């Protein structure tokens, strides 16, 4: 990277571009002769795909689309992430992918896997079953066997044979990327003047589409730039929780209300890079251990039912946030079911909270903006 491309605006411009034009990233991968695999939420084993010489390509619904072709498959009230992922594929927006893979951890993803297979036989859906008893010793061999099954299917689609060396290298690369993203999250919270909520989201979202090899050096450079700048305590830091919060208009509304994101508890952001693959002589075991080490996530079972509310409340405390905003995806039973318990824990600790209903089809965020302003006033 030259000095120029290392400058803060140039770096942020690169992330913005990568985050807002996934198709361009996909085209670039195809032009390099790579095979690309769509990764539906959640916990996609990107390292495995990468180690097989394929390009993991994030597939978290689609901004700016509305359901028409997918309405044949899902009732209109269904979660927009599922509807619009399918919509994007049905409209040809995923042309060039050789497969999609996804875990089946919620009741929307189950039918999505089935509708996908029915609607798009030419774009195979490779399911990855995940054990919920992650703390039990027998979960590891099971999950590992599912990773092996996925690897076999990827190989049949043209992936390179999985070697230990390649997987080790991919684990190292992705661990570094995760560490850099965690560092960025901390830095972003201290540099509200340079990193708006929208820019923060774009930097993190770019990791879904850009090659990890290109993403990591840029993020490292961005982190260095930010580290060199004086830190400033933001006026109204909040934690954003939910599945995702990537609508530019909504993020601008955060900014207009004077709210900064001190930390997030979003599935698309921090929840996806909280846990690294641990050192292990067997890299596939390491990847399996990474999944099993996850916790305090609404999609996952924790033997201690109090862990999740405690984790969220402590995140607010640790990050210095003054409150929490839950961006609740419409019809997301996972988040809806746990919210009363989270709210009770937040209330018990005197942490103010706000729920904003969201949908990837939402075009008008005016009401959300008003509520964010009122929340900011309450915090102020």
């Amino acid at each position, binding site marked *: 990277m030259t000095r120029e491309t290392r400058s803060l605006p140039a770096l942020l411009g690169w992330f913005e571009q990568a985050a807002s034009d996934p198709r361009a990233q996909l085209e670039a991968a195809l032009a390099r002769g790579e095979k690309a695999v769509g990764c539906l939420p959640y916990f996609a084993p990107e390292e495995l795909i990468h180690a097989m010489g394929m390009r993991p390509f994030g597939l978290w619904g689609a901004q700016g689309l509305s359901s028409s072709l997918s309405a*044949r*498959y*899902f*009732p209109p*009230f*269904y979660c927009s992430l*599922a509807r619009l992922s399918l919509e994007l594929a049905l409209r040809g927006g995923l042309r060039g992918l050789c497969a999609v893979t996804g875990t*089946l*951890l*919620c*009741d*929307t993803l*189950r*039918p*999505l*896997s*089935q*509708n996908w*297979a*029915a*609607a798009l036989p030419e774009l195979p*859906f490779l*399911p990855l*079953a*995940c*054990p*919920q*008893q992650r703390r*039990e010793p*027998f*979960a590891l*061999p*099971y999950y590992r*066997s*599912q990773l092996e*099954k996925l690897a076999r299917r990827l190989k049949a689609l043209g992936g390179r044979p999985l070697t230990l060396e390649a997987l080790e290298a991919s684990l190292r690369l992705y661990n570094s990327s995760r560490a850099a993203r965690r560092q960025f999250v901390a830095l972003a919270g201290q540099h509200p003047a340079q990193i708006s909520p929208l820019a923060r989201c774009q930097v993190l979202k770019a990791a879904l589409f850009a090659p990890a090899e290109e993403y990591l050096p840029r993020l490292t450079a961005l982190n260095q730039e930010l580290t060199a700048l004086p830190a400033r305590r933001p006026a109204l830091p909040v934690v954003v929780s939910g599945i995702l919060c990537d609508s530019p208009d909504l993020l601008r509304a955060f900014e207009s209300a004077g709210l900064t994101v001190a930390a997030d508890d979003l599935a698309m952001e921090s929840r996806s890079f909280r846990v690294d693959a641990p050192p292990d002589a067997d890299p596939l075991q390491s990847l399996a251990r990474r999944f099993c080490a996850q916790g305090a996530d*609404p999609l996952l*079972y*924790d033997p201690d*039912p*109090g862990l999740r*509310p405690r984790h969220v409340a402590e995140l607010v405390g640790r990050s210095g946030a003054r409150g929490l905003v839950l961006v609740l995806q*419409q*019809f997301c*039973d*996972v988040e*809806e*079911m*746990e*919210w*009363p*318990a989270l*709210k009770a824990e937040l209330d018990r600790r005197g942490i103010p909270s706000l729920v904003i209903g969201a949908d990837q089809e939402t075009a008008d965020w005016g009401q959300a903006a008003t509520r964010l302003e009122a929340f900011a006033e309450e915090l102020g």
Partner: protein
Amino acid sequence: MDSFSLSARQSLLEFGAQASRLAWDAKKRGEPVGWMSTKFPAEIPAALGLVTCCPESQAAALASAGQGGPLCQAADGLGFCADLCSYSRIGLALAAGCQQEGPRIPLPDFLLCCNNICCNMLQWYQNLARTLHIPLFLLDIPYTAQDEPDGELIEYLRRQFYSLTRQLAAFAGRPWREEDFRRACRGALASARAWQEVGRLLEDPLCPWDGMELFDYMPVLVSRRCEAETAGLLEELGRQLAALPPSPAPARARLMLEGTPCWPHLRQILEPLRRAGIQITADTITPSLGFFYRDLEGMLRAYCGTINGSTLTKGLESRRQLCRQRGVDGILIHLNRGCRPWSGVLPQLGRDLSGEGWAVVSFDGDQADPGGFAQAPYATRVQGLLEMLEERKEAQP
């Protein structure tokens, strides 16, 4: 003599109703009472003599008795979003002590959860464990999107089974005894066989009773299928039903009801069908409580094959088979808003079934929240179905 006045019917209904009395008695004796999801292997608590109730059955019963609305509203008041599964919302409201009227089940001292029908089950039960501060015993049967469970899944389940039974035995303060487990399995298998035979009576074109009656016996299958006397009662029901005088003529048409019944409005739903001389001879739910197996591995496999645990391909195959066996002409699909895993595949499933020649219509509703159903659109759908059935009849040579 009709099916409603059979002595075997009364005995079974009484036997089913006893389940909650037994739970209350256990509670009074100071024994722990569990809440168990419908498709948890009931053989496990039965082997340990643990008393359980099923909040889904309770929610269905309360919804039929007009309590779905107030309880769903109570769940709203607790902060649970109105588009969550209404069985779960009712269960959460019951756990919070919001029930005002209707029959009651005791609050649980432990939870037995199996996510083989939906992921929501685990979310729901975790929530109950969190708010009631009681232990949750989980049998995790992940959805795999595969037609058959693979060997690794069975191994995962087998090891969970050993761990779970050890933990539950410690909780119950009783030893886990293989002979008790085998006895529970024998009971469950005998019940499943007898239940299947009762259902098969509907294959007869002159069967004089309606398949919806089978739902009346579901509480028995859910809560008491492992008990020694259950099979005998079901066999007696089968005998008495088979001895009823046949209908003078076949029904005008035979329907399959797809999906959980819309309990709060069941009368309005069935009334226009009855008026049109239509008989319901098949449904997806009632056969789903017959688990057949030979050994532990077979049992674990059987519990993987639930309705919502299956693929679309397998689901289509089982419906096709059922519709053929039961001489079904048309299919009425309840697009049950609260049940995501089910409603998410119904449009495609309906198309597939219609592609195979059945008259298919669907209507919007909810299994327990009365707000999900509207009479006028339903009437239009039923009218459409009747016309389709008529056209097909005319087109027949």
